[in-house]
C-alpha cells in the first residue's frame, strides 16, 4: 500500500529522469512530491516541504554535500536522514545497481518506504533502458544514412537501380561475413579518396 501522506523530495540533475520518477510517484497516489535539480537548493526545499523520503541519483557528485546538510539539520532538531534500512541488503543492492540512493527520515517504517524506493528503482531502470534504446535508434539512423550514401554511389557509378544497389551491398556483406554498414562505410571512404 502506498502512503500518500508521505512527503517525497527528488534530487536529480537529469530533468527528464526526475520527471519520470515524479510522474510514477504521482500515479501511485503520492501528492506531496517535490523535485530539485541542484543540491544547493536543498536547504530551502527541506524547510518548505519537510520531506520524509529523499531520493537522489548516485551519479550526483554532491551526495556528500547532501549528507553533510543532514548532519547539520540534526543539530537544528530535524530528524536524521538515513539509508533505507540497514538490514535490507537486497533492496540497497538493487537501488545501487540502478544508480539511485534514498534517505529516509529516522523512525519511518520500512514498509512505508519500500514501495517508494522500488518505484524509483524501476523508473531509473526504465530510464536507462530508454536512453539505451534512444542511443541505438540514433546509431541505426546513422547507419542508414551511410548505407543510403553507398547505394547512391553504386547507382551512379554502376548504373544500378536502388533495389539492385541494396542487394549488391547485402550480398557482399554476407559473402565477407561483415555488417552491411561496414561494407557501405568502406565504399563511402574509398569513393571520397578516389575523388568525385
Amino acid at each position, binding site marked *: 500500500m502506498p502512503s500518500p501522506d508521505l512527503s517525497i523530495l527528488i534530487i536529480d540533475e537529469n530533468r527528464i529522469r526526475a520527471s519520470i520518477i515524479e510522474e510514477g510517484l504521482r500515479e501511485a497516489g503520492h501528492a506531496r512530491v517535490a523535485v530539485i535539480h541542484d543540491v544547493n537548493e536543498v536547504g530551502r526545499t527541506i524547510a518548505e516541504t519537510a520531506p520524509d523520503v529523499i531520493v537522489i541519483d548516485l551519479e550526483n*557528485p554532491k551526495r556528500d554535500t547532501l549528507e553533510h546538510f543532514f548532519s547539520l539539520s540534526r543539530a537544528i532538531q530535524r530528524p536524521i536522514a538515513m539509508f533505507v534500512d540497514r538490514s535490507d541488503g537486497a533492496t*540497497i543492492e538493487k537501488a545501487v545497481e540502478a544508480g539511485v540512493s534514498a534517505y529516509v527520515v529516522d523512525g519511518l517504517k520500512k514498509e512505508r518506504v519500500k514501495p517508494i524506493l522500488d518505484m524509483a528503482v524501476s523508473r531509473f531502470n526504465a530510464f536507462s533502458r530508454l536512453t539505451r534504446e534512444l542511443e541505438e535508434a540514433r546509431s541505426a539512423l546513422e547507419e542508414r544514412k551511410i548505407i543510403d550514401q553507398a547505394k547512391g554511389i553504386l547507382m551512379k557509378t554502376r548504373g544500378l537501380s536502388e533495389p539492385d544497389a541494396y542487394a549488391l551491398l547485402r550480398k557482399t556483406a554476407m559473402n565477407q561475413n561483415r555488417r552491411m554498414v561496414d561494407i557501405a562505410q568502406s565504399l563511402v571512404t574509398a569513393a571520397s579518396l578516389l575523388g568525385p
Partner: protein
Amino acid sequence: MSRPHITAGFLPLLDSALLVLAHEMGFAEAEGFTLGLTRESSWANIRDRTALGHFDISLMLAPMPIASSLGLTPIATPMIAPVMTGLGNNAITVSANLWKAMADAGAPGDLAAGPAGAALARVVRTGGKKLRFGVVHQTSSHNYELRYWLASSGIRPDLDVEIVVLPPPLLPEALGSGSLDGYCVGEPWNSVGVANHGARIATTKSSIWQSSPDKAIGMRSDWADRHPDWVAGIIRAIYRAGEWCQRDVHRQQAAEIMARPAYLDLPVDIVTRALTGQIDDGAHVTAIPDFFTPHAGAANFPWKSHALWYYSQMVRWGEAEASPANADRAAATFRPDLYRAALAGKGIALPAEDFRSSGDQAQRHAVPATNGTVELGPNRFFDGAVFDPARLDDYIAGQSSR
C-alpha cells in the same frame, strides 16, 4: 588457476597515485593479481559501494573506515585499513579577496600555518560577512585539519565560520564563483584553484601537522578475513608503488601517468607541483619537500595512534561518542599486524610499535623496528600540542569544541 581480479574505487586525487601506480607499473601484477580501477564521483559512493562489495578495496579518506566501523555511516560495516597511501598532500586555499584581507592583517605568505591562522583570526574578528569554507566529506582529514587549524588559531569552526561539503573537483570552481571563501582539499585541486581561479594557498597540511596521515586503502573486514593472501598482496603492491614513487627520478613519470584522462585528466604541469614539492601558492613557488611523502618515514604504516587521533576529532566535533569501546574499535580498524605480516622476511625495517606520540618530535628521529630501527620524519602540530595515545582521555578532555 586464474589470477584474482581485485576491483578498486578511487576519486580523482593525487592520493590515488599509489593505487594507480600499483596497476600501471606492474606492482599488482608482480603480486599475482590484477586491479580493476573505477573512478567514482563522490566519497559517499566510494563508501557505499565498498560496503556493498561492488569494490573489493578503495582509496579512502583515512577516517572513513573508522567511521564505518564505529557505525557512523549509512551502511555501517566493519572495515579495516591495512596500508596507508602516504603522508601530507593537502593544503588550505583561499580566494583572492580573502587572501588580500589576510595579507592586510599580517599574513606573511610563507605557507606557515601559525601566522596564516593568526591573520585569518584577525579577519574573522573584524566582522563582516561570515566566511564559508569547503571540505570534501565530513569524516575526512580535511575537515579535521581545517577545524584544528581554525580552532588553534582562535576561530570557532561551527560558530565563527561556515563549513560546507563539496567533492574535490568542484571546489576550485565554487571558490572562483564566489560561493566559497576557502577550502581544504588534496592535490591537485589547490593548484587548480591557483592556476584557474586566482586563488592563494594559505597553508599546507605538512605545516599544520607534520608527517600526518591522509588516505588509506580501505576494505570490508569480512572480505579481508576471507582473502588474507590477497590482502597481503595488496599491502606489498602499495608498498612497492610507494617505494618507487618516493624516488625523485620517478616523480615526473608519476605525474605524467596521473595526468592522464582516466585518472586526473589535467595538465601535467599542475599535477607535477605536489609530486615535486614545488608549491606555487599563487604568488611564488616554495619548495616544500615533505608536502607529499608517498613512502619515506614509514608513510605506508597504519599507526593505531593515527586512528585514535581521528577518533579524538570525531568526538571533539560531536560525531562519535567518547567511550573505551569506541576507542578500541577505532584503533582496531588500522591493522599494522597485517602490514608487518605481509612485509616480513624481506629485510625491511618495520615499526615495532603500533602506537606513538605525535607532536613530540621536531626533527627526524629513529624508532624501534622489527629489524633495527626505522627513521621517521618530524611530527609537530603547528600549535605545539602533543598527542599521547596513552593519555587519550586527557587529550579529548583538553580540546575545545564548536
